[in-house]
C-alpha cells in the first residue's frame, strides 16, 4: 500500500490545486458555519455570513470543475505508477478492486493481516470519495433552502416542505456539516496513517520514492 512510491502522475497539479481549494473552503465553511450556528465571539456575523456564501460558491464551482476535469485530465490509475489514463477510470469500477470491498473492511477491522490488492483508490475509499460529490450538492441545496433570497424558490420550498419546515432544514444542514467533518477526520487519518508521503504529494506536489 503505502510502501508504494508517490508520483506526480497520481495527482496532477490541477488536482493538487482543486484539493487545496476544497480544503480551504471546507475550513472556511465549517468555521463560519459554526459561528452562524452559535456566535461564540462578538463582531463577526456579517463577515461569517459573507465568508460562508463566498466559500460555498467557490467550492461548488470547484467541485463541478473537478467532476468535468475527470473526463479530460489524465492521471495514474495504479499506486506507484507513472502510467496514466483518463481520470474518470479511477472513479468507475476497476478490475483490481473486484471482490475486494469486504476484504478491505476486514483489513481495517484487523480481521486479516495482509494489505489488500487495490487500484489507486481502494473500493472503500472510492465509494466515500464519490459520496462527497452528491453530498456537497445536497449540502448546498439545504443551504439555499435556508438562504433568504432563494428560500422561497419553488425548487427549494419543495424540500423545506418535505422535511417539515425551515427549522428541520437547518438541523439537517447542521448535521450534514458533521458528516463532512467526520469524512475529513477519517480521510486525513487513513491517508496518513502509514506515513506522510500521501500528504507530500497532494499538498506540496513532492514525489517520494518508496
Amino acid at each position: 500500500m503505502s510502501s508504494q512510491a508517490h508520483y506526480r502522475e497520481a495527482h496532477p497539479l490541477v488536482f493538487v490545486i482543486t484539493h487545496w481549494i476544497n480544503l480551504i473552503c471546507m475550513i472556511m465553511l465549517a468555521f463560519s458555519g459554526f459561528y452562524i450556528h452559535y456566535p461564540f465571539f462578538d463582531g463577526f456575523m456579517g463577515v461569517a455570513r459573507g465568508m460562508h456564501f463566498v466559500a460555498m460558491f467557490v467550492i461548488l464551482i470547484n467541485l463541478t470543475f473537478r467532476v468535468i476535469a475527470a473526463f479530460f485530465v489524465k492521471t495514474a490509475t495504479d499506486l506507484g505508477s507513472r502510467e496514466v489514463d483518463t481520470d474518470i477510470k479511477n472513479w468507475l469500477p476497476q478490475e483490481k478492486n473486484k471482490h475486494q470491498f469486504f476484504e478491505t473492511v476486514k483489513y481495517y477491522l484487523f480481521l486479516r493481516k495482509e494489505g489488500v490488492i487495490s487500484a489507486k483508490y481502494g473500493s472503500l475509499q472510492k465509494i466515500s470519495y464519490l459520496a462527497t460529490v452528491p453530498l456537497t450538492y445536497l449540502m448546498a441545496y439545504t443551504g439555499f433552502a435556508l438562504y433568504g433570497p432563494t428560500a422561497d424558490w419553488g425548487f427549494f420550498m419543495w424540500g423545506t416542505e418535505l422535511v417539515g419546515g425551515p427549522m428541520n432544514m437547518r438541523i439537517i444542514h447542521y448535521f450534514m456539516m458533521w458528516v463532512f467533518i467526520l469524512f475529513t477526520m477519517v480521510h486525513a487519518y487513513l491517508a496518513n496513517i502509514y506515513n506522510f508521503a500521501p500528504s507530500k504529494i497532494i499538498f506540496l506536489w513532492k514525489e517520494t520514492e518508496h
Partner: protein
Amino acid sequence: MAQEAHGAIYDLLAVRGVSRRDFMKYCGYVAATLGLSEAAAPQIAAAVEKGAKLKPALWLNGGSCTGCTESMAQVDTPDVATIVLELLSLNYFETIMAAAGEQAEKNIADTIAAGNYLLIYEGAVMMGEDGNTLLVNGHKGKDILEEAAAGAQAILAVGACAVDGGWIYAHPNPAGGIGVQSFLDSVKVATPVVNLPCCPTSPEWVVAMVVQWLLVAGDDPAVFLEKTALLEKKYHDNYRDADVSLLYPEYIVGSTIHDNCPRRGHFENGEFVTEFGSEEEAKGYCLYKVGCKGPQTYTQCPVTRWNRSVSWCVNSGAPCIGCGGLNWVDNNAPFFKRLSSIQMGGSLGNVQPGSVGAVVGGVAAAALVAHGLGMKAAGRIGDGPPIEEMKAYDRKRMAKGGDK
C-alpha cells in the same frame, strides 16, 4: 354623545377627525392611528342599523384558549365594537355575544340556514376520542365546524391552532387537535380557508381580511381568491397522516421576522445578548443567541406589531418563539435555544443537535485514536503492511480448482 347616538357611522368618525374614505383606506392597510372607545358601541350600533349592510358571520371556538379573541379585543382601528357592529354581524361569538343558551345555539342554526355568511374559526379542530375531546351543547366541536363550514362562503382560520392545530397539535397530541384546512380535507368540504398564523393571531390581520372581503372582493369568494395575494404552503399532518395545502395572505407570511427586525443591525454587527438581564440586553442587542426563531419564522410581526402597534415580542426583549410557523411548538422548543431539540423518545428524551454533533465527533475522534493504536500494534505504521500476493477471492477459487 347625543350626536353619536343619532349620526351615521361616518359622522361618528368625522367627530374624531377621520373621514369615512380615510377610514376605509386605513382598514385596507390595517394602519393604526385611532382607537374608538367601546363605550360608543351602542350608539354606533344604533347608527349603523339604520343603513349599513351587515355581513353575517360566525365566530366559532374550537380547542382554543380564547387568546385570539383576547387579541381581537386589542385591535386598533376599527376597534372591536366597530367591526362587530359596522362591518360584521357576528351572530355567534362565545366570548362577547349577549345571547346565551338555546338562543345562542339557535343563532348558529339560523345563520347557517340563511347562508351567505363568513366563518371565523379560532382554535384547533378536536379529533381525539372520536371528536369527544370538545363538546359544545352536547355536539362535537368538529361536527359544528363541518356544518358551519359547508355553508360558509369562506373561512378565516385565525391563530396557529386553527391553521394546523397549533400547540394542541404538539407531540404527543392526545386530544387530536388539527387545523381547519386539514379537517375540511378529511370531510371533503371545499370552502376556501384563509389562514392567519401566530399564537395569538394579530387582530390587524383579521381586520385586514374582513376589509379585503367586504371592500375589495365585494362579498364574492371568487373575486376574493383572485384579488388577494395568497401564498400556498404545504405540510404533513401527522395526526391524519395526510398532506395539507394551506392558503395564507402573502403580505403576512411573505418574509421572515429576521428580514424586518429592528435588531437586525446588531445581528449583522455580531452584537448579541448572551444572557437575559445583561448589559447587552439593555443595549438592545440581537436575541439570536438566546433562541430567537426570527430567521425561520415567516410573519410580518415587526411591521404591524402588536397591542395597538405599540410593541411586539422582540421589541420588548423576548426572542421570537416562532409561533407563526407550522407545528410551531415541536419545531421551536426549547424556546431559548438556537435550534429545536430532537425528540429521541424513551429515556433519551429531547436532545439538542449540538450535543449530538459533539458526541458523534468525539466518539469518532476517540475511535480513530484507538484504531491508530491498533495499527501501530499490528506493525502497519511506516511502510504499511505487506500486500497480499493474490486476492482472497482468487485464492479461494484456486483452492477449489480454478476456472473450469
